[in-house]
Structure formats: structure tokens, C-alpha cells
């Protein structure tokens, strides 16, 4: 089993300082049972470290279960600011007896194991430092019973860890205060246990390990939240007025956050009149139907779902595309096909969503990689949907959506909302109205909203063939010209959507293309690759369809590695089909075990491919292109084998 920790990968390299300590450069994993309240304890540690000024990222590796199955919470501290997952964690909080055997095996040499001293025996390793804390003793002292006992026992490891790693108790108090929204009584009750465990540890545990935390100032002025919360907030500032949804992990917390922010920021005030409606639908078929209906009627309408929900939305998605209705659909991707791994992360819905709908459909997709982009795309998706009169999809994933990330504070939308080509009654009187006519040559027609009282404003929207006036038509030329106009509209979208972010390195023969939450691992890996003599350019796609910048970036590099978290290289496939002349330059590197990407995987995957290249890497570009064509097939095959062994 290779969940979360990867013993075969070996330890990461930690830098030891003059005092012989490893400071702010390691990872912690807390192994607990799901549903025991360990999340509170883990988030307290995470936020305390954040408050200490240390760059951190937390990842919850959890089961599809309400209570009892094992769960692991990873916290990475990185004084260099890296937030990607690491293969190993040096500090293990072993609080789940069911997995302790496996958990201890995953520790690297020199690792630390903090465990519940009440357990009779645990597996021993000579190269691991053990610390036992008598959990029952603390719990007995508090007098708590039942479920509260579990919560309290988690606070015991918080206190012990604070002593072992030098986490100041005041920061933990602040963190708990944040989590319990200032309810001091609850904070005090938890802190009492934390303090007791801390004091006991200080008296009874002699520190024999090297890992410590120390205050930094790298997080001052930054915020921490989950991607789903950021997305919901973006939607609120995008003026969302309607949402319909059906619960599905990992998208549910987006709607939970939306409900909470709407109530907090847009709630019924003095007027007593609501500015939004959120409906929990009976299924995703209905959720998208409601959203398309609301979008047609002029609301800023959205839904959030994950892969299986997208399947059910396919029919209305096609209607929305063809009837040209604005809508925003967040897909917080998880692992498929089918129910797949519902609590693991993936980028597996890209081609499905890109072509979602039967017949000829192509959809606009935004690809956030950070909290800021979740927020930005949260409101920009509405603008794009209104501008383009089409459903716009935002593909986040479980890792970004449900885990806590750091970010600079969000920037307020710099421009007013863009509502697109909507005609008022006066406009109709002045210029007439033909719903599907391409007046401006950009493929985007004008629309009217129900309620417009000009006698010529109304039209009958439909999924059947129609002419410029929205009247039913089966004439071949009407159908064809409408489909060509829709293609023209898609071309217009290319330069309306957020363009790629390019970081080019002079003289780099290699380019990396990626999108979404592979970003932190790639940024880290590029440093390592560069140090190993393989400098790389990096283009991060922020949306589909692609524009000319993408083609130019590929053309400027001899070899391109397209890195993504799905089996078949979905974006690589799209790039190959849309840029056939450059397709031989593309090599697909795919990671799809459900765990977030690591810098190490990228480094080793790229190095493996590069090593397989002939030595004459400095050839003329034309020769290089030919050679890439020859070699590519081999490097694909080689890569596939490497991945299996990994």
C-alpha cells in the first residue's frame, strides 16, 4: 500500500544548520482514524505554523467514509516556500493503531514517531526516534467521555508535538481561536489539554531528534483557506444570484462556503428581500437544468460538482452550448472512471468536459492553480459566460479545493461586471432583434431577457435546429451556418479567456506545459532540474481553448513535456490534435495514482526522458525536430515503464 507516504522513494534531503538542527524544512504526517475530530488538531498545527511565519501546506489524505477508516494529514513546512506534496514525512504522529505498522515503515531513517503510550507494543526501528505520550492519563484527568474523549486525545498530540518541535503555545491558541471562531470557552478547553500534554512532555521527554520550527516572516499579510472557499468567495464577488447543486465530494464544501458567504455578505438586510437563491436539487440533471433556466432568464447562475455529476449534466450542457445560455459549472475533479477514488485528486475530466455534449461541442474551460485564481475565476467565469453566452467550466480538483493553501490577499475585481450583448426594449426598438444573427462577426449574437416588453424581443429557445431568428429550421444551410458561427464564437473565446502564464529561460531547449494544481510541484522541480543542468521554460495553461501564445511557446522549444494528473495525457492529446504540426515535440508525463504531484516525480520523470535522448542535444532546431519525432515513441514507452515501477 502506498497511500500518502512512499518508503520506496527514500528520504528527502534535509539541510542541517550549524547547530546540527533541521529547521523549517520537513514534513509531518498525523495518522488518525476518520471522524475522530483529528481535523481540528491538524488544522490547529497547520495554522499555528502559518502564524509563525513559516510557509506551509496541509493535505488531508482521507477515506470515503464517515467514521473509522484511516486518514492521514500531511503538513509540509518549507522555508523556501514550496507547497507541493513530498514523498516522505519525517515526523509521524502515530495515533491510529490500525495503521501503525505501515505508518512506521514509511518513516525515513532519522524519522520521529510520536505515539500513544497506552498501546502495549509498537513496531521498533533502530533508525527512528520514538516518543510515547500517555493519552489515557490526560483524558482521565479531563473527565471527558464518549466522542469528546477522541477529540481530547487528538489535542494531546498537539501539545506533545508543540514541545518536540518548538511550536509556541500562543500560536496554537491563536489557531484554535480562529477555528472555533473566537469561542473562548471551547478554545480554553482544548488549550488546557494542549498545555497539559506540553508540560508533561517538557518534563518527561528528552528531545533526541533534529527537527525544529523557528519563526520566520514569510507569511505576514497572507491568508490561508481552501480553494473551494476561495471559489465561493469569487462567485459572491462575481454577483452570483442563483446556484443549484447536488452533494458530491469534493465539491460540496464549495457550496457550503457559498451558502455561508452569501448569508454573511449578501444576506437579507433592511429590505427583507433576498439577492440570491441556492437550491439543493434532486440530482445533477436537475441542478444543471435549473442553472441553464436561471442563466436564460438573466441570473448569474452556477453549480458545483465532480466527474460523476458532470456525466449527468452532459445533456443540458449540450443544450446550453447550442441554445447559447450563460452558466458557470465548477468541476472539482476527483479520480474516475465511475465512482473511482472519490476522496483522491485528479485532472481526469479535461477532455470529457472540453467536448461535453453530443454532436459537435467544444467548451470553454478555466484551470485555476491557486487560491487567487479560484477567486479570480470565481467572478471571471460569470463575465465570460455572459460575454460568450455559453456554459463556462472551471476545473479545479480535490487537492486545491479541499486543502488549505496560503495566498496573498485577493485583489478586488478591477472592472465592473461584464454582462455581454443583452438588448433592452429600447435597443430592440432601435436596432431590431434576431437572436442568433452574427452582427459583429465575432460569432456572438445578441440576446434579450424574458420580461423584455418589446413585442419583438421574445424568442423561443430550443435545442432543435434554428435559423437566425430562433425559428425552428431543418434547412441544411441554416444548420451549417449556425454551427460555423458557433465555431467562430469559440475562436473568439481564445483571446477572451485568461491566457497562459509563461516563464521562459533563455537557452532552455525544454519546455514544460501544465495546468492547475501541478503548479507547486513543477515550480519546485524546475529548480532541481536547473541545478542538474536541465533548465526549463514553463507555460501554465489557465484556460481552454488555447491561443497563439501556446503554439509559439511550443515552437520555441525542442522538446515539450506536458505534465498532468491523468492516465492518457488529456491536455497533451488536445494540443496534439489542435497543433498537429508541433505534435512531435510533445511528450506526455502523466501521474494518476490519486496523490498530489511531487517535485521529485517530475524531476525523475523528466530526467529519465532526457537521459533517453541522444547526446547531441545542441543540434540545429530543424534536426532536433526530426529527431524528436524518431525518439518520441520510445520515450513514451520508456516512460510508461518507469511510471509502473515508481
Amino acid at each position, binding site marked *: 500500500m502506498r497511500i500518502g507516504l512512499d518508503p520506496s522513494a527514500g528520504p528527502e534531503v534535509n539541510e542541517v544548520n550549524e547547530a546540527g538542527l533541521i529547521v523549517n524544512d520537513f514534513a509531518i504526517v498525523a495518522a488518525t482514524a476518520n471522524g475522530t475530530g483529528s481535523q481540528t488538531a491538524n488544522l490547529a498545527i497547520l495554522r499555528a505554523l502559518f502564524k509563525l511565519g513559516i510557509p506551509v501546506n496541509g493535505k488531508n489524505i482521507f477515506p470515503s467514509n464517515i467514521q473509522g477508516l484511516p486518514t492521514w494529514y500531511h503538513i509540509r513546512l518549507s522555508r523556501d516556500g514550496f507547497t507541493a506534496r513530498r514523498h516522505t514525512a519525517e515526523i509521524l504522529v502515530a495515533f491510529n493503531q490500525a495503521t501503525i505498522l505501515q505508518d512506521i515503515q514509511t518513516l525515513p531513517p532519522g524519522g520521529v514517531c510520536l505515539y500513544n503510550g497506552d498501546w502495549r507494543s509498537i513496531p521498533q526501528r533502530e533508525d527512528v526516534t520514538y516518543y510515547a505520550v500517555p493519552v489515557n492519563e490526560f483524558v482521565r484527568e479531563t473527565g471527558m467521555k464518549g466522542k469528546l474523549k477522541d477529540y481530547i486525545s487528538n489535542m494531546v498530540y498537539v501539545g506533545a508535538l508543540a514541545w518536540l518541535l518548538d511550536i509556541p503555545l500562543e500560536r496554537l491558541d491563536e489557531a484554535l481561536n480562529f477555528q472555533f471562531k473566537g469561542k473562548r470557552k471551547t478554545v480554553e478547553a482544548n488549550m488546557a489539554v494542549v498545555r497539559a500534554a506540553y508540560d508533561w512532555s517538557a518534563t518527561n521527554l528528552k528531545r533526541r531528534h533534529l527537527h525544529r520550527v523557528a519563526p520566520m516572516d514569510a507569511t505576514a499579510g497572507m491568508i490561508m483557506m481552501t480553494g473551494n472557499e476561495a471559489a465561493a468567495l469569487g462567485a459572491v464577488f462575481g*454577483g452570483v444570484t442563483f446556484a443549484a447543486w447536488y452533494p458530491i465530494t469534493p465539491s460540496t464544501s464549495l457550496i457550503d462556503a457559498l451558502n455561508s458567504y452569501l448569508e454573511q455578505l449578501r444576506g437579507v438586510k433592511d429590505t*427583507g428581500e*433576498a439577492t440570491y*437563491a441556492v437550491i439543493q436539487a434532486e440530482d445533477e440533471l436537475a441542478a444543471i437544468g435549473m442553472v441553464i433556466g436561471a442563466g436564460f432568464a*438573466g441570473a448569474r447562475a452556477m453549480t458545483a460538482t465532480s466527474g460523476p455529476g458532470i456525466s449527468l449534466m452532459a445533456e*443540458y450542457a449540450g443544450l446550453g452550448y447550442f441554445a447559447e445560455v450563460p452558466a458557470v459549472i465548477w468541476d472539482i475533479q476527483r479520480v474516475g472512471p465511475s465512482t473511482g477514488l472519490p476522496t483522491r485528486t485528479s485532472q481526469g475530466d479535461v477532455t470529457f468536459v472540453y467536448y461535453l455534449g453530443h454532436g459537435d461541442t467544444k467548451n470553454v474551460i478555466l484551470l485555476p492553480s491557486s487560491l487567487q485564481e479560484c477567486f479570480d475565476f470565481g467572478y471571471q467565469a460569470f463575465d465570460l459566460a455572459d460575454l460568450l453566452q455559453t456554459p463556462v467550466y472551471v476545473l479545479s480538483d480535490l487537492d486545491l479545493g479541499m486543502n488549505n493553501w496560503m495566498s496573498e490577499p485577493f485583489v478586488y475585481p478591477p472592472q465592473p461586471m461584464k454582462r455581454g450583448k443583452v438588448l433592452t426594449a429600447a435597443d430592440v426598438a432601435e436596432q431590431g432583434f434576431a437572436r442568433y444573427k452574427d452582427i459583429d462577426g465575432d460569432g456572438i449574437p445578441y440576446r434579450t431577457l424574458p420580461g423584455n416588453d418589446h413585442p419583438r*424581443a421574445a424568442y*423561443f429557445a*430550443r435545442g432543435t435546429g434554428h435559423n437566425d431568428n430562433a425559428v425552428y429550421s431543418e434547412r441544411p444551410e441554416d444548420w451549417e451556418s449556425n454551427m460555423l458561427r458557433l465555431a467562430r464564437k469559440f475562436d473568439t473565446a481564445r483571446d477572451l479567456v485568461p491566457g497562459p502564464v509563461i516563464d521562459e529561460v533563455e537557452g532552455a531547449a525544454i519546455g514544460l506545459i501544465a495546468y492547475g494544481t501541478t503548479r507547486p510541484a513543477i515550480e519546485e522541480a524546475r529548480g532541481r532540474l536547473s541545478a542538474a543542468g536541465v533548465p526549463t521554460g514553463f507555460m501554465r495553461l489557465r484556460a481552454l481553448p488555447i491561443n497563439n501564445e501556446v503554439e509559439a511557446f511550443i515552437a520555441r522549444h525542442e522538446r515539450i513535456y506536458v505534465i498532468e494528473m491523468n492516465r492518457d495525457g488529456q491536455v497533451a492529446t488536445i494540443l496534439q490534435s489542435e497543433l498537429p504540426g508541433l505534435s512531435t515535440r510533445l511528450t506526455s508525463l502523466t501521474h494518476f495514482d490519486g496523490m498530489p504531484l511531487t517535485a521529485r516525480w517530475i524531476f525523475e520523470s523528466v530526467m529519465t526522458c532526457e537521459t533517453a535522448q541522444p547526446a547531441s542535444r545542441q543540434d540545429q532546431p530543424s534536426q532536433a525536430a526530426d529527431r524528436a519525432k524518431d525518439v518520441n515513441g520510445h520515450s513514451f514507452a520508456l516512460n510508461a515503464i518507469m511510471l509502473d515501477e515508481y
Partner: protein
Amino acid sequence: MESTSPRSIKVNAIGLAQADYKGLPSTLCQGCGHNSIANQIVQIAYELSLRPHEVLKLSGIGCSSKSPAYFLGQSFGFNTLHGRMPSLATGALIANHHLRGIGVSGDGDTASIGLGQFKHMVRRNVRMVYIVENNGVYGLTKGQFSATADEGQVLKYAGTNEFPPIDICMEAILAGCGFVARSFSGDAGQVRELLKAALSHRGTAVIDIISPCVAFNNEDTSTKSYGYGKEHENPLHGIGYVPKEAEIEIEPYDPGEMRVVEMHDGSLIQLRKLESDYDPTDRLGAMHRLQWAQEKQEFITGLIYYDDSRPNLAETFRLGGASLSTLADEQIRPAQSVLDGLMNSLM
């Protein structure tokens, strides 16, 4: 609204002629019951002086669902997906809750593929008139049984129907519907009065109209045929609708002869007693009567159940004077200071 009709033509209170409420010519079969229903909608819209731009026409897929093209040509409409009209209607009518929704569905669209969405729309009590043009058969795909076909019925194409019918009125009542009616497309007067009353209803008003399919299911032996309907229709009461605006003094009436139901908007429904005194406000009685009718293959029509006590979905959401679709930007995008404050709290 400006009238498009010359002065010589008769116009209603808002200056529109009946022709202004027409749609495109029907492409359904000659004699199809659905055409008659479309015509009744044109007539009552004219009589009630409905403003076309305040009406939203909705349909699913099937013969029935084509018909919104054949009435109210100046009204917005959406021909949606098979069985999925209720969800789109829900979204559209919440985005603009001032619109009056008129949905036209069929028995396949509602009772087969769309039963789930139908029931959930009803339980949410979305304010709209939901007409089922019920002929027990699939027309566009040439004659398969629908879920409302009688058990044991024999059709040339489809053979014998082995399964019991789904009764749309019973399903509506079970889902919490407060306006449940059944009618017959051959009884134009009753259809019109029910449509008018349904437009005044606070929430979802379901009218199950037996509307014969002349192409595939019009043998006299079929309970969905013209012949059967004309022979067997058994109205529970004579029905009349009095709009609130009419300010008509109702003639004094004998409670033994007539029931008057006051609707949520102040309009009145007059129910003239026929052979027995049927009480449409008795939910259990209504269910009992429907089951009895189903068992005896009795074709009862009229207002089967009425209750306006449940708030509609827009009321539940506390939607106010402005519709969600017309809120000003500053009402839906909080100020910069709000974002800054929130950011501070997350540091």
C-alpha cells in the same frame, strides 16, 4: 404595450387582439387534442389580458412539447429536454419570479422520463401552470405505450401493456401539489376555466388533460380516445373562474348547489354541484376518489384538489420586488471594504 391591431378589431383591456396571442401554425396532426389546448390558451390569455412579455412558455420533448410554438408568439419560451422541463422552469422562474410560467408536457415527458423532476418541482411549489397533454402513447417515435396507458390495453404497434398506469393527478397530490385538475381536450369550456384558475394559483398548478392521439391511440376502446372521452367524461362539478379584477358581485347562491373557493390572489373558483357534492379541499377524499376512478376506469374531470396554504418557492426564498435577474450590480457585488475585511480575518 402597443397594440399591433387596427382599431376595427376587437381588443382586450391592454389593447391586444386575440390574434396577438397566436403562435406559428401547428405542425401536429389534424385533429390532435394538443391543438385544441393551444387554442384555449390563446383564448384565455386574450380574455385575461395577459401581458405576453410576462409569460414564459416551457416544454420538454414530444408532440405536446412542440405546442408552445403554436401559442403566444410574443412570449419568451424554452423548448427544453425530454423530461427535464421542470428543472429549467424552476431556475428561470426563480431568476425572474414575476414571470407567469406555462409549461406544456406530455405523459411520456412527465410520467416516464420526467417523473422525478415533475415531483420535485411540485414539492418545491414553483409557481407555474403545468399542463400534461396526456394521450397514453408516444407519438413522435410511432406508438409505444407511455406510463399512463391502461393495464391490459392492446395497441397495434406496441402489443399489450402489462403494467399499471401512473396517475399524474395522484402523483401530484402525493408530492404536495395544491392545484390538481383533470380535463379532456374535447371539453374546451372546462379546459379554459381550469387554465384561468391555474394561472391564479399561488404555486404549481397541475392540469392533466386527456388529449387524444388521432394517429396512434384513438380507438373507441382506448380510455384516451375522443370517442371514449365524449361518452364517459364525468365532470365532478361545473367550474367557473372569476378574476379578482372583475369585481363582479357573485349572484347569491345556494350552498347546496354551489361551492366557491377563494384563491390566494383573491380570484374565485365557482364549483357548481352536479350529481354529488365533491369537496376538492379534502386531500384524502381526493386520493380516494382518484383511486376509485382508476379502478373503475371512470373518467372524472374537474378541480380534483385545491390547497393554497403552502408558500411557493419564490416566497420561500423571500424574493422581493426586483427579480434576481434585474438586481443592480452594486446589490450583488459587495464593496471592496467587505473583501478587505474578510481577507484580514483570514490572516
